[in-house]
């Protein structure tokens, strides 16, 4: 047993599908000016930037610890 699809609706969607302006949104991608990923260049960059990044997360972790210390001392 089947239920008939409305041919007018099919036609309407087929027309919409042929509208490039509408389809552009479905295929919308953001601009990308990057160059291909290079593991060896990325590794050198990671090593060069590690000290600064490590210091930043160290400060964040130390903040968590000091916050807990304050809370504990307030009890």
């Amino acid at each position: 047993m089947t239920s008939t699809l409305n041919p007018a609706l099919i036609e309407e969607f087929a027309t919409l599908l042929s509208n490039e302006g509408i389809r552009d949104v479905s295929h919308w991608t953001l601009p990308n000016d990057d160059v291909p990923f290079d593991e060896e260049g990325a590794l050198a960059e990671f090593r060069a930037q590690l000290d600064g990044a490590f210091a930043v997360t160290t400060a964040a972790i130390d903040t968590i610890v000091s916050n807990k210390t304050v809370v504990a001392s307030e009890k």
Partner: protein
Amino acid sequence: MFDERDDLAGPLSEAEERARIARRCAYLYQAFEAYNSKLVATGLSSATMNKVLLLNAVESYFLDIQRLKAFHGMERADRFKIAGYFLKWLCKIRPIQVGPLGNLPPNLQKRGIVVNADFALIHALIVAKINQPNVEPRLVMSLLYSAHYRELDGGVMAVTMESLARAYPRAA
């Protein structure tokens, strides 16, 4: 600087796919070695990278990117997606393992507990070319919290990294 042009997107042979995954694993393993040397210097000496879990994270990342590209008809993933999607998968699979933390000072215990989130966040900040020292400590703490506790969406993390990169650009 980076994009994932044609990563596992069909034209690559299985041998080429495996080579891409192996190179990315080696890159992340060596990045971890550099990160681990910092951990050891602070007194946390028990962290190791489980290579099988790392492979699982990297392959999952590539499959995720492949799915993203197929859905959007997208040719390339930029540095923010690379940063965001690796942040997601490294935090989900947690390939870094640590030994007992019970007798360590509180700051080393915290670092040990969040070590996967910490490494993944540092990696993301560097890949996205964010000038890390300028990012507010409160924001870094919030990112670290999210990386450790929350269910991360790669796309949302990508736009988070792009926002940070626009707000805190690193000089080329």
